[in-house]
């Protein structure tokens, strides 16, 4: 089971600043190990982020996103205390989702 997604959502004025960090190796499939063997591709492909059940961001990631992908984005029209949930699926069909509450700064 992959490590939990780290979510920080801070409401300042009208804007909620959201940082999402998803622990994942993000193997490109092009990297060779010490024995010269290619390491199989294994990366997150889809990320969906919802606030109170409404989709606020959908991301499609390629193999070029750094290990432990970080997404930083900004929302309007959400309130402190609302639940923000993040779900991803990777090339092996593994899934992980976690949620947090939006904090007032």
């Amino acid at each position, binding site marked *: 089971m992959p490590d939990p997604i780290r979510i920080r959502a801070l409401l300042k004025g009208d804007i909620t600043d959201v940082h999402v960090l998803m622990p994942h190796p993000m193997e490109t499939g*092009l990297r060779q190990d010490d024995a010269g063997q290619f390491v199989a591709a294994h990366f997150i492909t889809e990320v969906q982020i919802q606030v109170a059940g409404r989709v606020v961001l959908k991301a499609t990631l390629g193999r070029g996103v750094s290990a432990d992908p970080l997404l930083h984005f900004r929302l309007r029209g959400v309130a402190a205390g609302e639940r923000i949930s993040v779900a991803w699926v990777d090339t092996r069909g593994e899934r992980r989702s976690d949620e947090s509450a939006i904090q007032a700064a």
Partner: protein
Amino acid sequence: MCAWSAVHSESVPPSRREALQWLGAVLLGCSLGTRVQAQAATGDEAAFLAGTLSQVLQILGATPAADGTHLTLSVPGFVENGAIVPVEVTSHLPGPQSIYIIAESNPFPLVAQVSIPDGTEPYLATRIKVAQSCNLYAVVNAGGRTYTAVAATKVSIGGCGA
């Protein structure tokens, strides 16, 4: 330092090995790219499998020329480690729908795409791998049009080994 010059230098064999490994990875990436693409994919899916910048831009309906000041792409001018290159896209264009991040030198240049629903600001910051010093592109679909921003970054250790 240029990896290619090291190929001709007898004094730094590790650099030569790195250069050859990098070349191998790029060639493999290119062959994988064309093979997978032959299985026919559409739209964004095809763009993620495209092996060159021009193919990606063609699929997205974008041009490599930057237009206007309403779209900015911020990247560090110099990074030591190509495995972690911070990028930040900010758009002030009306009607934003999606943001694409592209690294020209990567075996698969399209790195990420996000869809922007109403209520989400047209802003995205993330970290990407960059194979070698090159131009990075941000493409934004807004109000039925496609806009491009360009920024160059220099990488001292490519992100291929990560």
